[in-house]
């Protein structure tokens, strides 16, 4: 069972990887819930002003109302930053951006104050980011108040000094002393120049605008492309601080481009497939995992949606699995990237590629628009579409010729489709044949849609034949991805055979004479299992057909042994067999009373010894009389007693090292007092002798 499931999974993965076409869906509610999760509020704010702007802008584009709970604290920060004379240019810019969304109460004096600071900054600016923050700041001031007149007198000079940072391939440098060119910088520069153009008091030199347009075309020439049509700008320099990757670079370029086209009011001839490729790139990311990525994705898509360059239209399918038995209709939806309605258009099914074969059938069939749900429906599938995997190719046709300039349809859109259906299984039969003559011994019909329980018996001179036919609802022969016959012996040994097809019929013949070795000469009962499965087959089955009683010859001595059956993987987690400890039987102990009797007996000789001492009139006369020697003699005996006591403790609980340490000290003491006592005795006896 698990093995069959494994086959199915492998098959699905293969199918998925073989399809190069990919479906891009417009922004949906999953993005909205992701935005609410990713931009989390802590302590009444989103974090820094930059993060706050990103969160607010994302929410604005997605139409999420979530300003009230952070407004008070954020506005306080904005007023602080703008009012403070020491805040950096970048912080001023971010504060103005946030203010542009939140519309905090700022007086004109504050705007005038920072405007003069920003104008000073423009004159001192060296790097691209200096220009970006200051020009961007002026733009924001212009948008936010009408009281303060914002103009750039020397717009031509600023334009030229920014343009001086551009590179030949359309990319830009961040500053004149940084030789590395970056796509991200190009986006930033475009946005800054858009600001310069719209702030200029007199019109900018046309030749400058023309060269810039030329730069943009060059930048788009260097665009990278995926197989599925998605385009993106690659970013070579990855800087951890700036968080620049392909996503942010592409997003900033789109932002800058749309800002520039809006400001310059000119037309720009950019290929529509690259614009829709960019849209596919941003949509192909799905729902990003980080707040920064989500901001870049959403902002870029919002720019594309409202751009004057061309608005990409995205063709998406609510369902890519169509069931023939349920009579599903092919439905296609066309939206802009953010999911709003498309202009009047019709969708045409151009070609159908059958997977596995290269040939395509040209259809050229227009889909019918359902005006209520704004869904284009193909009411009946083309005649040559049967159960299987296909790649459909669609084309979007705009009704109004004027719209062709505004919208980018991205040419043909290819979509992988699964057409599923119930496959009928007919003429299923199982038979035992005689090997020599080929005559049928037993033959049984099978009903593969219901239960089967055949009981067959065969020996090694016979054959087993299983055959069936598969037809699609349209009456064509169906070839499933998997058709397996499995024989499973009682002992768990399994044999799997692939059922091959010959023309219309699926048939397998097992000649047991040639299989005895493979079957390890195992006679007995074999369960027969048939698996027929495919991703597009709605009634894929794995069925037990019955059993086969096989009578095989005895194994010769050198025959291979059947392999040991694998242990069920879950049994590892089951309870282990209980461990019973076997202890050695305790030694036989003597009766307690007998031991006590002998304890008494052992003491008896001691009493005898004491009695003998009395009998012999032993005495302590030799004990010294004067105080000092008596003390030493007493200490000597006490020392011996102490050593013996130490031995007792050693026996009862101490270890050898502790004992030897204590014994060392006791031994020194004992040697000293013993020497004093015994030498005193010796000198006394020597005196006696000499006297």
């Amino acid at each position: 069972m698990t093995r069959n499931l494994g086959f199915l999974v492998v098959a699905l993965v293969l199918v998925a990887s073989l399809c190069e076409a990919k479906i891009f869906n417009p922004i949906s509610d999953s993005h909205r819930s992701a935005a609410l999760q990713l931009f989390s509020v802590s302590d009444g704010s989103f974090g820094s002003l930059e993060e706050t702007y990103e969160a607010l802008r994302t929410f604005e584009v997605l139409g999420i109302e979530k300003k009230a709970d952070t407004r008070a604290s954020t506005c306080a920060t904005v007023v602080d930053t703008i009012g403070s004379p020491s805040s950096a240019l970048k912080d001023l810019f971010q504060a103005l951006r946030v203010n542009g969304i939140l519309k905090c109460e700022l007086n004109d004096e504050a705007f005038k104050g920072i405007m003069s600071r920003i104008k000073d900054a423009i004159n001192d600016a060296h790097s691209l980011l200096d220009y970006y923050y200051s020009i961007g700041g002026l733009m924001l001031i212009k948008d936010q108040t009408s009281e303060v007149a914002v103009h750039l007198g020397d717009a031509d000079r600023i334009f030229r000094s920014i343009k001086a940072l551009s590179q030949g391939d359309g990319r830009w440098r961040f500053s004149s002393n940084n030789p590395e060119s970056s796509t991200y910088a190009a986006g930033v520069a475009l946005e800054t120049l858009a600001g310069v153009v719209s702030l200029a008091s007199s019109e900018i030199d046309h030749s400058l605008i023309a060269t810039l347009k030329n730069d943009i075309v060059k930048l788009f020439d260097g665009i990278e492309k995926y197989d599925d049509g998605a385009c993106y700008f690659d970013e070579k320099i990855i800087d951890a601080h700036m968080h620049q990757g392909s996503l942010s670079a592409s997003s900033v370029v789109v932002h800058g481009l749309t800002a520039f086209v809006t400001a310059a009011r000119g037309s720009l001839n950019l290929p529509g497939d690259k614009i829709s490729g960019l849209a596919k790139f941003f949509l192909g990311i799905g729902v990003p995992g980080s707040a920064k990525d989500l901001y870049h994705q959403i902002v870029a898509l919002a720019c594309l949606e409202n751009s004057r360059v061309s608005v990409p239209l995205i063709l998406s399918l609510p369902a890519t699995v169509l069931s023939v038995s349920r009579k599903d209709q092919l439905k296609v939806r066309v939206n802009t990237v953010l999911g709003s309605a498309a202009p009047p258009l019709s969708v045409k099914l151009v070609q159908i590629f059958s997977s596995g074969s290269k040939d395509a059938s040209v259809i050229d069939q227009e889909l019918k628009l359902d005006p209520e749900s704004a869904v284009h429906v193909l009411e009946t599938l083309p005649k040559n579409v049967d159960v299987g995997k296909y790649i459909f190719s669609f084309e979007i046709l705009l009704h109004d010729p004027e719209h062709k300039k505004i919208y980018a349809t991205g040419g043909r859109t290819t979509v992988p489709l699964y057409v599923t259906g119930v496959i009928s299984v007919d003429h299923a039969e199982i038979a035992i044949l005689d090997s020599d003559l080929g005559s049928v011994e037993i033959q049984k019909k099978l009903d593969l849609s219901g239960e089967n329980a055949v009981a067959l018996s065969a020996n090694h001179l016979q054959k087993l034949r299983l055959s069936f036919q598969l037809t699609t609802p349209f009456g064509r022969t169906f070839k499933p991805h998997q058709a397996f016959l499995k024989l499973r012996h009682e002992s768990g040994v399994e044999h799997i055979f692939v059922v091959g097809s010959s023309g219309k019929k699926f048939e397998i013949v097992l000649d047991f004479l040639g299989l005895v070795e493979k079957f390890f000469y195992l006679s007995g009962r074999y369960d027969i299992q048939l698996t027929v499965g495919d991703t597009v087959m709605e009634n894929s089955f794995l069925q037990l057909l019955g059993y086969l009683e096989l009578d095989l010859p005895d194994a010769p001595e050198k025959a291979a042994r059947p392999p040991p059956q694998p242990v069920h993987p879950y049994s590892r987690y089951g309870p282990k067999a209980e461990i019973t400890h076997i202890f050695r039987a305790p030694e036989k102990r003597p009766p307690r009373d007998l031991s006590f009797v002998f304890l008494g007996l052992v003491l008896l000789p001691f009493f005898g010894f004491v009695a003998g001492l009395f009998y012999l009139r032993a005495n302590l006369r030799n004990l010294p009389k004067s105080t000092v020697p008596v003390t030493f003699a007493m200490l000597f005996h006490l020392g011996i007693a102490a050593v013996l006591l130490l031995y007792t403790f050693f026996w009862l609980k101490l270890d050898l090292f502790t004992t030897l340490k204590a014994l060392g000290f006791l031994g020194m003491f004992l040697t000293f007092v013993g020497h004093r006592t015994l030498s005193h005795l010796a000198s006394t006896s020597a005196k006696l002798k000499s006297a």
Partner: protein
Amino acid sequence: MGRSTTSKDAQALFHSLHSAYASTPTNLKIIDLYVMFAVVTAVIQVVYMAIVGSFPFNSFLSGVLSCVGTAVLAVCLRIQVNKENKEFKDLPPERAFADFVLCNLVLHLVIMNFLG
């Protein structure tokens, strides 16, 4: 008749032995008594083992060897202390006793270690 003569002879032999032993100095007699005490204790332990079996064999060995070792050391002490032995004439009995005490302490350290 013969039997009574034999017993008489034996009696005479014991008598002479007893009288000869009586002249032994008291300190040697005390040592002899001590040796006897040790040997009898050892014999009692052997008998006990013969009755109940040798299960804690190391304990049994320690007990018996303690007694036997003490007895041997005591015999050595007796040899050195005996004035008849000209060999140890220059050796003071106090020195011999010090040896005896030291050897006993070392012996019993080993015995205690082995006792288990």
